[in-house]
């Protein structure tokens, strides 16, 4: 059953495939399962963050704190683990902290009617600042559990491999999809983004939903932080700088409207993949200077969005 609202998603997927194909023709070693797997391995944390961000944006808000929360999570994890805490305690704890942090921001947004942009911007400063208070240096993790999770390779046919983080990220994507489409919380999120006033008049629990959304985003960021900790095996206050923009861009490229109400988790998945492919292409090209790298990223992004719009026809990204 092909519906009109699914066309943009298909176009996005198609363009991803196209970009991958172009890369494969152009560069040797590009066309392989491992390159695809690396996209997932290297973007697992972004994927997880972006799923949380999708909910926030669909509800008509925005969460700028995600990058800092990731950094804070790595920092807390690293300092505690190095202090001898067992990972089995540290990980649930940081996840709880992330969720509470998000919930707190959601509560301020809801009860005091302050713009999400500002509240989460303060959250961003705060989380980043807390990192520096813990330490301005990087803290290396040499805990056996963390290193083994980080270095476990999940063997795939043909000598390829994935990592545990990939499994986590894919689970989160699936979970996000399920929550968005098959739970009341998910549908309330869409309603909230469509019109907050109407949601209220229809008797939906606006306040609770809103706080839950930010808590969920905080939880996702913290989970991304855990995955990031696996990835880096260190805590550092400067980790994940500017990640919020990457996440927002991925969500928007995936067809979610910043004005809220319309959005797709699957789209977000491909939004992340597309950013990854652009980066991979640039690395494979390997002849661009620092500045040309930036320019080319911009140009590729531009071409992608233009094509996406042309192919999916009638402005689905049109703001109402």
């Amino acid at each position, binding site marked *: 059953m092909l519906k009109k609202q699914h066309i943009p998603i298909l176009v996005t997927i198609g363009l991803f495939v196209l970009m991958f194909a172009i890369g494969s023709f152009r560069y040797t070693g590009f066309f392989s399962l491992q390159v695809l797997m690396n996209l997932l391995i290297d973007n697992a944390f972004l994927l997880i963050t972006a799923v949380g961000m999708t909910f926030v944006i669909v509800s008509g808000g925005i969460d700028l704190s995600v990058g800092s929360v990731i950094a804070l999570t790595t920092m807390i994890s690293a300092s505690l683990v190095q202090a001898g805490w067992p990972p089995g305690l540290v990980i649930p704890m940081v996840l709880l902290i992330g969720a509470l942090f998000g919930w707190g921001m959601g509560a301020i947004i809801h009860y005091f009617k302050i713009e999400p942009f500002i509240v989460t911007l303060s959250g961003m400063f705060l989380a980043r600042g807390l990192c520096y208070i813990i330490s301005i240096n*990087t803290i290396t993790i040499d805990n056996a559990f963390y290193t083994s999770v980080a270095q476990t390779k999940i063997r795939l046919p043909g000598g390829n491999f994935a990592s545990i983080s990939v499994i986590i990220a894919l689970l989160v994507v699936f979970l996000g999809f399920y929550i968005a489409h098959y739970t009341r919380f998910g549908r309330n999120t869409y309603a909230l983004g469509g019109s907050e006033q109407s949601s209220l008049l229809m008797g939906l629990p606006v306040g609770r939903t809103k706080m839950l959304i930010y808590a969920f985003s905080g939880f996702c960021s913290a989970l991304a932080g855990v995955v990031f900790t696996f990835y880096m095996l260190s805590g550092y206050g400067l980790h994940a700088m500017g990640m919020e923009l990457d996440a927002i861009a991925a969500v928007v490229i995936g067809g979610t409207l910043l004005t809220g109400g319309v959005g797709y988790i699957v789209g977000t998945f491909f939004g992340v993949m597309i950013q990854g492919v652009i980066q991979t292409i640039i690395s*494979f090209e390997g002849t661009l200077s620092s500045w040309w790298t930036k320019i080319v990223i911009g140009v590729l992004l531009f071409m992608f969005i233009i094509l996406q719009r042309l192919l999916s026809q009638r402005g689905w990204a049109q703001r109402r």
Partner: protein
Amino acid sequence: ACGSSGDSKTASSTSAAAAVSPSTAAAATAKADKKITMGFAQVGAESGWRSANTKSVQDSAKEAGIELKFSDAQQKQENQIKAIRTYIQQKVDVIAFSPVVESGWDTVLKEAKDANIPVILTDRAVDSKDTSLYRTFIGSDFVEEGRSAGKWLVDKYKDTKEAVNIVELQGTTGSAPANDRKAGFDEIIKSNPNLKVIASQTGDFTRAKGKEVMQAFLKANKNINVLYAHNDDMALGAIQAIEEAGLKPGKDIIIISVDGVKDGFVAASEGKINFIVECNPLLGGQLMQAAKDVLSGKELPKRIVTKEGVFTSEDAKRELPNRQY
């Protein structure tokens, strides 16, 4: 002075490379049939120093006949890791990179090791316990730079009895050069209780911020004797602020900075900066040589220290014509 550029050293080590054992030489020629490909994962282009570093690597690669795969991580470690993964995927002959931070490299370096690709670090080390993950590390030592700055200051004020008020312009909060240059400096000046850092704030390594912060320092503190800036750009911004306040940089306020970019040297030769600790970005030649050595099977020392000098105003005047960046 001691401001020898990397290139002179390249020449000497090239001759050393000629004396290789026959077996490795065979391997080397086998490789030499094919052009060497190097993947270089640069941190970014956040400063003039970094751009000079990039240019040096690119130029030296061309000169040495090495095909360079270059990528820019935009100051993000995760991007650097991604780039290294693509190099592994592309089966380059050797991977080189300047780590953004010391920690967090084990996983990807293991992958490189599994794929039999040697890794060379430049500019900064990694803190892996497993030192087999990389072949060698070419670069400077930020803590040492801080120490050099401190030593000069301690030396200068060794006879002074009254308190010396120091203000410090730090680099980007949390960044490795900022942390280390501060740590090295603090370590040394501890020895003289008269030397007191009365204000310390980040200037983000930029001129504009350096000027802005210095201006606030000048208003908040009546008596500043010394300025220690973590890089030349902040020092140059601060000089403007000092001049606008009607003071003479280098005279009323002693200025110490790190890096030694050309503009810094100009200021030093005019006497506005009293002391510069050099941090040499021109590592390209050494890097290419090391790459060739590694591929020809030569054992390399785990650390190749770049030759870096310290310059007083007089040294700077002499050295200025030789500065290229």
